[in-house]
């Protein structure tokens, strides 16, 4: 039997922790608050150390809170991060997304900076500023930066946020044994998708949508051990997912992954979802990293990286690239399906569609089709936002009412 308007608008018959109000995916004010309350204080993956191999190598990254950053390896080989904003007239200092710059020179008036953020040149400085302003007054804004958890470069734009290790807690314990050997990025692409960033993180946080993927149904769902995979929630909204043995040879055109991963059982698969929008995804024989950069309530730019081992032979690397592309490349079987799925959510949830609630109600003892990963995320979301995900406008009503347009 279908529902009328009142029935459609009634809250689900679940505890409030088991559903969210769909307005959290569409409201501009909530989106603006998320950038300040979730992303600005968080540690965010900006790039990987293999993208900055030599002294003076740099990489640009737009922080999800909106800040344009330069990540640069100094002459002392230390990796540092700075605002990509000239302290003179606010111009962009470096334009190309990556390169090697012994001096970072603003094209506008040729002010120049070294890789430690020190201003080393103010053109015609004395003539214009006399003794009122000098190079010492014109340093770049440095951002906290650490290389950790598999050689990734983490940044934090807030001076007083907790340390990276404190932010991550035990969430990476499941993966750290497999990240002892140096890795190297071999794949990078961005996807601009018309959906809310949380919906992408939701997709990475629940495996019930394996029904979407023929590849996963045939290589995972139908194989022993699938329903024993478990979620483990951690402080600060992170969660990990335990492994099983994926039967890659069950998919026509695929085969058992010949290139392994150090210390990992053949066919293993671990995931770690990090609040508020990053995912480590290690399937033998490839590591994938997703970093979400929210653009608007219904638009997210996702950066995808694929990594192998720095020690790979040419043959091993080619096999990892093949394995990656089979499911995770822009033409891969699974990534397209996942992105199509969340684009459909973006279409159905945009403002004015009368979507009301999203269910997170599956309970299966924290195993693979349990929706505890999303429940755990939204508990943290609610705590940091000061809004309940099921009642974001504090309406306190059994049947929440939409805000006026």
């Amino acid at each position, binding site marked *: 039997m279908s529902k009328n308007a009142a029935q459609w608008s009634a809250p689900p018959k679940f505890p409030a922790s088991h559903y969210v109000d769909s307005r959290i995916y569409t409201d501009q004010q909530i989106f603006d608050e998320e950038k300040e309350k979730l992303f600005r204080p968080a540690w965010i993956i900006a790039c990987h150390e293999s993208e900055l191999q030599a002294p003076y190598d740099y990489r640009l990254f737009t922080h999800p809170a909106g800040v344009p950053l330069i990540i640069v390896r100094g002459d002392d080989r230390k990796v540092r991060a700075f605002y990509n904003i000239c302290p003179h007239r606010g111009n962009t200092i470096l334009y190309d997304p990556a390169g090697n710059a012994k001096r970072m020179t603003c094209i506008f008036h040729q002010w120049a900076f070294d890789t430690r953020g020190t201003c080393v040149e103010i053109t015609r400085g004395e003539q214009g500023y006399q003794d009122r302003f000098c190079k010492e007054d014109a340093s770049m804004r440095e951002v906290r930066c650490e290389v950790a958890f598999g050689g990734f470069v983490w940044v934090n734009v807030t001076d007083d946020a907790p340390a990276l290790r404190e932010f991550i807690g035990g969430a990476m314990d499941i993966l750290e044994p497999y990240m002892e050997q140096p890795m190297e990025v071999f794949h990078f*692409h961005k996807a601009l998708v018309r959906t809310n960033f949380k919906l992408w993180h939701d997709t990475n946080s629940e495996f019930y949508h394996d029904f979407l993927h*023929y*590849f996963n149904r045939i290589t995972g769902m139908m194989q022993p051990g699938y329903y024993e995979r478990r979620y483990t929630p951690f402080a600060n909204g992170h969660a990990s997912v335990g492994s099983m043995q994926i039967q890659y040879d069950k998919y026509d*055109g695929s085969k058992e992954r010949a290139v392994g991963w150090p210390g990992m059982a053949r066919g293993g698969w671990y995931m770690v979802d990090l609040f508020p929008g990053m995912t480590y995804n290690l399937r033998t024989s490839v590591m994938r990293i997703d970093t979400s950069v929210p653009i608007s309530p219904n638009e997210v730019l996702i950066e995808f990286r694929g990594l192998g081992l720095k020690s790979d032979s040419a043959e091993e690397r080619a096999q990892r690239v093949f394995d990656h592309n089979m499911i995770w490349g822009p033409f891969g079987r699974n990534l397209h399906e996942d992105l199509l799925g969340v684009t459909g959510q973006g279409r159905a949830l945009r403002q004015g569609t009368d979507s009301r609630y999203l269910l997170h109600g599956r309970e299966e003892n924290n195993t693979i089709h349990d929706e505890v990963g999303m429940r755990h995320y939204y508990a943290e979301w609610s705590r940091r936002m000061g809004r309940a995900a099921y009642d974001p406008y504090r309406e306190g009503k059994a049947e929440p009412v939409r805000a006026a347009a």
Partner: protein
Amino acid sequence: MIKGEQRQAIEDLVYRSCLALDARDYKTFLSLCDPEFRYTVTTHSPEIRRDMVWLDHDRKGMETLFANLPKHNSDHSPITRHATVYTVDAARDAAEVVSAIQVFRTQLDGGATELFAVGRFHDTVKLADGVARLARRIVRLETRQLGYGYHVPF
């Protein structure tokens, strides 16, 4: 120097390969390909300063990819490949062919068309008994942002 009819046959092959793929007529597309056919999508990332391979299959791999398509959930918006053959450098029984390629995607609902991708085909064509066959196709993409991607090769 390549003969006029040879160039005609090569251009015809490139355009027919586009028409077949546009029509999702994979049988016809594969009939244009040599038994040793290999298909690769590559691009360069200025971000990580590396060449990348995004798809790489031999003929058997392409056959399997096509056969698996109905089992997957895919965007059904049709795409249209617009190729222009730029250069043909022929030896006696083979030719290296460079074509510009633009791919347009048309939404099923409403029919709006958008530019999806631009790049080049770098084809190796085998010539035998007046017949041209695709032996190798490298799709060198300039476009790297493909939104939610696509299941069918360009």
